[in-house]
């Protein structure tokens, strides 16, 4: 018996999936940021602070491994930064899901375009532009 050609999923499913990824990504990351904020305020709330001159950030807020280590040590600012990383990862995860969606939809033109967007973001991460 010859199967009629049909797509595994439709645009509507991709829309729903995208919507869920974005919503939960934002909620989760905000939860982590708030938790980190409470720890940070509890520990450092009465210290003086000044943001008027740019001094750069301590290493434990700029590097993935260093953030992870500091989170384990329950440093408030590192937990906030982990939440911010989750937030930055949210739209990137949305792009990743789109690749899967377009593959299932057999839209190979858009698999290519979406992979190109991912490649640009990876280049931004790994390109050493942060120095």
């Amino acid at each position: 018996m010859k199967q009629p050609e049909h797509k595994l999923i439709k645009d509507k499913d991709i829309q729903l999936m995208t919507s869920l990824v974005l919503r939960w990504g934002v909620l989760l990351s905000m939860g982590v940021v708030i938790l980190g904020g409470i720890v940070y305020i509890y520990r450092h709330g009465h210290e003086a602070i000044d943001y008027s001159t740019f001094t750069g950030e301590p290493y434990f807020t700029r590097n993935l491994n260093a953030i992870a280590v500091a989170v384990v040590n329950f440093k408030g600012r590192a937990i906030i930064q982990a939440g911010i990383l989750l937030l930055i990862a949210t739209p990137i995860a949305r792009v990743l899901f789109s690749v899967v969606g377009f593959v299932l939809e057999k839209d190979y033109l858009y698999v290519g375009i979406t992979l190109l967007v991912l490649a640009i973001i990876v280049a931004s991460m790994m390109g050493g532009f942060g120095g």
Partner: protein
Amino acid sequence: MSVLVLTLIILIGAYAAGLVGSLTGLGGGVVIIPLLTILLHVNIHYAIGASLVSVIATSSGSAAAYVREGITNMRLGMFLEVATTSGAITGAIIAKYLPVQYIAILFGVVLIFSALLSLRKKVDHIEKTKNLVAETLKLNGNYPVGDTHVAYNVQNVGGGFIMMIFAGMMSGLLGIGSGALKVVAMDGMMRIPFKVSTTTSNFMIGVTAAASAVVYLQRGYIDPGLAMPVVIGVLLGAFTGSKILVNAKADKLRYFFSIIITLLAIQMIYKGLTGTI
């Protein structure tokens, strides 16, 4: 100032910025940066870093709703993200070498331009002319109006793409969503219905901002102590704004805020010109 007091002040300011940004359609980013730099004397690099993070949050949060409603043209968004993300990286690289005075002046100019655009009449024009490039790239779409779906065609793909590279660059350089520029490209050049333009622009802003945020993070421009109240405040403010019904009064409110934003923009330019930023 102590951390606790400053965090509370920024939280309130960010809430106001998110609310005004949402009501005017300008976005929280362009409001929070002058607020932080002019009123609270925060260094512009820190302000831009924190704003970028808040831009990702508001864009992703509202895109979640629009995508589900089927207004967003996801293929168009994906295609144009090639332009905006590469522009964003370029902008983030330039940001390191451009003196802060120039960043402030450029910011002011983009802000005034955005405020003017937000006051324009919004018309959903439906383009029926066929365009070969748009058809090949499957960019044409349809969107729900009442109970039916209205189909539209996309024009001037090349011009829109180039404009998007520019919009991405401004986003990466100034830490804003540059929604106004994206809408110019889509609504003005590509002849896409206004509603689709704004929601698709919103959809692209998160990825665009993420592309430059990874550079800013590694460079130490994202301070968690500052970004925390900014992102929470802007997101809550934007959420409140989206719940306020758009009526005639809201229209007057928009004019009022646009004037205030323009004044802030002029002050940014002045500070940039006199080198006091």
